[in-house]
């Protein structure tokens, strides 16, 4: 090779000794090529780059030796550490479970009264319950448990299925109208759509339910008889509710689906069958009990007020 532009040629001694132009700023020779005015310097390969490459390569080789790395047809190198990412993850996950065990495990017992009176235990457990509630329940029941159309308020004094922790836990475990085999079942019949009651009767009942909700004494009203015949079985005499079959009280101002005449009419015509998912399987038994106590406490303030 005697090409004048051969970069492999020895760098000529002195700045101006070579036959290739030298860059005055850096003192380095160019390669002698010219691409429409662009030239390049034949600056020697910086040492630091070689060292960096060696370093990065050593890091990689160590990683390849220790970790699963290279495929071999039907198998791959497992690495000296023998790591498996899901085993790792499960190990860490179980570690976290163990870290929680001392305060979470007691909740498996479902001795709610004893648990609730253990203040230090509750203080440790409630933040976890709040997070579980926010990630799983708040979508329907809202961040503070106040519910919304179709989703019950958990902080008022009304319960569809009972407000004891035992009952709440059972609701959480099996759900309502859910896919769980033991699900709680509830249904507000579609009196209009299914032709159980004529439209005129429904109008009378709408008025009657509205009257009940205002706390008026509507025992003699035109709808009263219809109500006693068709509705009281589920909603109780005078719509007091509380039968533990999911039918709400109608003699208060709180509504699940809304208290305007139109909304009540829709309820009576088309029926309702709210679905609360079952949490068994998704949440552990302890977590379910924990949440039951959390929910019970959520509305304590309101409920005490209501009782007074």
């Amino acid at each position, binding site marked *: 090779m005697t090409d004048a*532009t051969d*970069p492999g040629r020895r760098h000529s001694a002195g700045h101006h000794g070579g036959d290739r132009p030298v*860059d005055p*700023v*850096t003192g380095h020779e*160019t*390669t002698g*090529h*010219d*691409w*429409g*005015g*662009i*030239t*390049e*310097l*034949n*600056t*020697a*390969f*910086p040492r630091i*780059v070689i060292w*960096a*490459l060696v370093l*990065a*390569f050593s*890091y*990689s080789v160590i*990683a*390849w030796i220790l*970790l*699963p*790395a*290279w*495929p071999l047809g039907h198998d*791959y*190198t497992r*690495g000296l550490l023998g*790591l*498996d*990412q899901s085993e790792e*993850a499960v190990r860490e996950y179980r570690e*976290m*479970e163990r*870290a*929680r065990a001392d*305060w979470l495990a007691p909740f498996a017992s479902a001795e709610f009264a004893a648990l609730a009176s253990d203040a230090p235990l509750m203080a*440790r*457990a409630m*933040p*976890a319950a709040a*997070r579980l509630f*926010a*990630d799983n329940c*708040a979508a329907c029941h809202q*961040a503070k448990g106040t519910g919304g159309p179709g989703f019950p308020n958990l902080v008022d004094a009304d319960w569809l299925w009972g407000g004891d922790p035992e009952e709440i836990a059972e609701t959480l475990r099996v759900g309502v109208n859910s896919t769980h085999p033991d699900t709680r079942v509830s249904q507000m019949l579609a009196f209009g759509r299914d032709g159980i009651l004529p439209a005129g009767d429904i109008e009378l009942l709408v008025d009657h339910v509205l009257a009940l909700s205002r706390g008026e004494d509507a025992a003699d009203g035109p709808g009263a008889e219809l109500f006693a015949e068709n509705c009281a079985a589920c909603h109780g005499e005078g719509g007091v509710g509380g039968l533990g079959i999911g039918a709400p009280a109608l003699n208060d101002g709180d509504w699940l689906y809304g208290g305007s005449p139109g909304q009540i009419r829709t309820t009576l015509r088309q029926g309702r069958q709210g679905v609360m998912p079952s949490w068994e399987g998704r949440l552990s038994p302890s977590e379910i009990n924990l949440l039951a106590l959390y929910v019970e406490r959520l509305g304590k303030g309101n409920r005490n007020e209501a009782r007074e």
Partner: protein
Amino acid sequence: MTGTLSISERQVGLALAVALTLLGLVMAAAARQGPMAVHGAIAAALGLALVFRLGGALYDPEVPAGRRQRFYDAPTRFGIALTVIWAIIGMGVGVWVAALLYWPEATPPWPWTSFGRLRPVHTTGVIFGFGGNALIATSFHVLQRTARARLADSISPWAVLIGFNLFCIWAVTGYLMGSTQSKEYAEAEWYADLWLVVVWVTYFVLYMRTLARRAEPHIYVANWYYLAFILVVAMLHIVNNLALPVSLAGARSFPIWAGVQDAMVQWWYGHNAVAFFLTAGFLGMLYYFLPVRSGRPIWSYRLSIVSFWGIVFFYIWVGSHHLHYTALPYWVQTLGMTFSVMLLIPSWASAGNAIATLNGAWHKVRDDATLRFMFVAAVFYGLSTFEGSFLAIRPVNSLSHYTDWTVGHVHSGTLGWVAMIIFGAIYTLAPQLSGRETMAWPRAVEWHFWLAVTGALIYVVALWNAGITQGLMWRSYDDNGALSYSFLQSVMAMAPYYLMRTIGGALFLSGAILCALNTRATMRRATGAVRAWDRPLVPGPAE
């Protein structure tokens, strides 16, 4: 455009335009409804417009003799115009989707305005529309100047640019209509994918034929990069987009890959779309415009060799760093991680080579906003590749993956590196192609520079904070071993960062709009003067 074509070239062009019209009509007729029919109609309309344009000019006077002694710059000018148009579309949509994340109620009730449909319009608009047109336009320029040869023919540059932009239009209008393959950065449906293959082959052939005419026996580094960009993108595009259409008369197709293999192929593609589209091509741009603007020789030829082959070889291994801790086997993740770390060396070697090239020209960097764009681009290139290699380390990725940190990293690369080098190239090219000394409004370049730097910094810093906050909130456990935050709390914590990002993006966009107007003003007032030395050494193609 027609003025630069000879009569026989116009005839060939006319034939191609007729063929495009027919293709569009066939597509529309076969599909009858849905996205493919609309796309057929778009192709037919474009074909028809070209038929009229070329047909109308068919018997205009023959091009003046001697054009072979000139470079063919008309396609470059056209490509630059398309670049700035797509910049405004793509970044405009970017700012809009950024705003939607802060203010979701602003979404109008029409399907095509929904975040999920607009997001790929943004990514495709900026990467392919803005980035792709810039790459194609500058590659024509760089290729001719460094080879000192005129483009090998006069039809295919137009075919490449028009065909490529038809692909971009098909892609983004498809997403608006809900037609997508869901593969990130490859969302366009099967017929658009096929079309792009045809365009790309044309591009490659043109590139090679022109390169073959070069006056200097050695191929300049910039061309190595452009070549890697063309070749590897073709390879990635074809493999990732292999799909079986439900019907030849409809848009819908299913990728042949499934599950974990699909994920690996997707991110082998996705990462190397970054590597060979957003990096290799733009390094080609940097390797040309930086020495030209600074008037300095490339600092080290030897370093260029190592960084080029390092980038080409290492990059292709690292796609699996997008799948850390997923159901992708651990061994692939280890390879992705280690190669990403090794990749840092050639990446920084390139950035270092660029910055060292400025030795002896720092006064120019201070005074010339155009050169400053390139300098900042090189710095951001170094920054984002460092960040990338860092994010590729598994434990780091366990925090950053799925968060806005990734988006912050993306935009330090795309705003800081890709967009800045494009602006630097445009500000160098536009005056030169218009026979002017400077841009029409030189002071606007300075304004643009500061808008761009401020916007990019606000964007990137906001999203670093956002992403790290998010990642920490998701994984933090309290003293009792329970997760501390709900997911929704992390969503709410993002609001201020999303607002800042929108503001940063708006600043960046206003700079881009300024650039578009300035470019228009510059190219409008072209003098037509050509610098005497700026001509091919090699005669042009046979007419």
